[in-house]
């Protein structure tokens, strides 16, 4: 009897042990194939001299590509721009997103329409956004110059994207506009999860609107904000499509960022060894930032 009853039990427990792995395997395999394999390949390529138009020449050079990158003026220019790019775009998007979310959380007529409209910049393809803003910034026909000239704020049309002093800032503004709806929607969802009773209790205790925001709203959405900032940090750091379409990294190196530089090296100059080395260096730098951020904010939120 015992012998008979034990076998199905044993089978069931074995099934329970194996089944999760069996079900996860396809996903893991796909991830390995499309994420980890190319990652390893990139790391492997970065240790070789590999210029695509000399397909038979794949020579081991060790860390030479990395040394070359660290001695490359353009690498440092691009790194500086990447840091400016991340340190301004993300806070600007967060702030704008927060304000938008707070506004959209108020009761007003046509609120659902406003909530739907706000998502448009986020829903548009990057290339469309880039081309649209190229026209806005155009020094001959652009609406930005037209508007500022008519307002009397500038005396001469400014070539926003052709002037190295304004090019990066102009692109940052574009990306802020593109990315803030993501924050707005995420924060709005967070706002709606805060029970109304907290605010009622606070106002009975005589807390001002600011106090309510500081002690109820902000802690209530901090978890959402942390996740959103993390995601956005990785996306913004890696995004170069908007820059590529708007200026191609120019004028000169004025809008070069590291991912764009790696892309140009690999795809336009076909120097895959060097391009991969830049990509690997950037991945390592980004990993440091992400780990540091997670440690700090993890503590703060908990």
């Amino acid at each position: 009897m015992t012998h008979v009853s034990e076998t199905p039990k044993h089978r069931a427990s074995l099934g329970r042990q194996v089944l999760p792995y069996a079900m996860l395997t396809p996903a893991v395999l796909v991830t390995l194939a499309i994420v980890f394999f190319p990652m390893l390949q990139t790391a492997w390529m970065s240790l070789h001299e590999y210029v695509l138009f000399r397909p038979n020449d794949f020579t081991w050079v060790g860390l030479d590509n990395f040394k070359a990158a660290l001695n490359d003026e353009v690498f440092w220019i691009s790194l500086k721009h990447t840091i400016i790019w991340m340190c301004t775009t993300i806070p600007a998007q967060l702030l704008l997103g927060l304000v938008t979310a707070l506004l959209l959380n108020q009761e007003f007529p046509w609120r659902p329409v406003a909530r739907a409209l706000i998502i448009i910049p986020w829903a548009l393809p990057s290339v469309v956004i880039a081309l649209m803003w190229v026209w806005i910034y155009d020094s001959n026909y652009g609406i930005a110059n037209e508007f500022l000239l008519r307002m009397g704020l500038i005396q001469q049309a400014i070539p926003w994207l052709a002037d190295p002093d304004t090019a990066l800032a102009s692109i940052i503004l574009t990306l802020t506009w593109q990315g803030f709806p993501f924050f707005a929607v995420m924060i709005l969802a967070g706002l709606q999860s805060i029970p109304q009773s907290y605010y009622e209790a606070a106002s009975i205790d005589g807390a001002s609107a600011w106090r309510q925001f500081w002690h109820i709203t902000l802690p209530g959405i901090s978890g959402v904000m942390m996740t959103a900032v993390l995601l956005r940090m990785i996306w913004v750091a890696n995004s170069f499509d908007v820059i590529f379409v708007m200026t191609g990294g120019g004028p000169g190196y004025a809008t070069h960022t590291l991912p764009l530089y790696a892309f140009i090296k690999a795809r336009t100059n076909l120097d895959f060894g060097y391009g991969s080395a830049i990509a690997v260096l950037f991945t390592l730098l980004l990993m440091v930032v992400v780990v540091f951020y997670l440690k700090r904010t993890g503590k703060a939120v908990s």
Partner: protein
Amino acid sequence: MKFKTLTGIASTLALCAGMASADSTVRFWYHFDNADNPMDALVAAFEEANPDITVEAENIPWNSYYDQLYTAVIGGNAPDAAMVKMFAQPRLVEMGALAPIDDWLADWDGADGLQDNLIELTKGPDGQQYYLPVQYVVLYLYYRPDMFEELGLSVPTTCDEFRETAKALTRDTDGDGQTDVYGFGFRGAKGGHDHWATFTLGAEGVSLTEGLTSEAGVAGTQFVADLFQQDGVFPPSAPNDGFQEIIGAFKAGKTAMTIHHIGSANGMVEALGDNVSAAPVPECGGGRWTAFGDESTAVLSSAEDPEAAWKWITFLSTEGNNTMFNEATGQLPVVKADSESWTLHPQRFVQATVDSLPFAEMLPNSSATADFVNTAWPTNMQRVLTGDIEPAEMNAKIEELFAE
């Protein structure tokens, strides 16, 4: 074997379904700026004459044409035939991506009908023939005769005259304190090396491979920088301006001169009527330099059916078809008979092209040329224009690139 069996089954099925089946397919890549391109008509005409061949022609955007072509070659997904320019040939040959066409060419009747010397001009770096010319252009100076007349100016023939003319043409026409017309539309983005080269490479002893860092070489780049920074005769957006911008600004009357080829002549006439004309580029530093804009077709070495691909590209370079092809691109036919009956462009633009031919040159037959065109020139020129580096540094970087 498996693939063949599958293809066999597929064709049988197609036949059963009463559909037309083809024995081989030629995948062809090309780039046309013209939105209403007649490639479909050419393909239909070819397929009618060659019912056993299907042509899949794909228009690839110019800006990423070579990026896509190179990566497709490496990725093993190259087209069977493609439109190609001379500057890409050394690199494509080095990649082993092209099929030599010498034997086919020797047997082809149409070869004698091509313009003289074109086959010789397009020879590969290793002496073999890979390219079959399909169209050509020569860059010249576009100008606005009405503006010249209004200001009593004549077409500049030297760089000094050019500078004075450009300064006179740069003006505020409505008195609002804003410059409304700029003397010259300079192309500072990718593809603008031909503008810079006109001002720089005309000088004696200066070419991309030698003399670029000499006094005369640096003076050319300095001349371009001065036109922008001191004289302000280029629109402020010049460092980023590409093909669309320079042509758009000229058509809109924002610029009074620019350099391009006959390909944009009809569009300009449509916008400006008789108020646009053309002349050879000015002489700079004692000589003239303008670009011979070539375009050929080639069979890729990975072509599934190279014979079919060859048939298709020769089709494009034969009498009548070559006219049709060039009507779409707005360039000039390579077939003699088609040139003689050519009526697509107003005579003044054909004349400017013919007058420029004697001093038209091509970029060096070197694998560094692609990097020069795609990144080294635009980046360094933009840095010079925006005051980031000195002209001498730009010339040194270019010389270094070609010396590698």
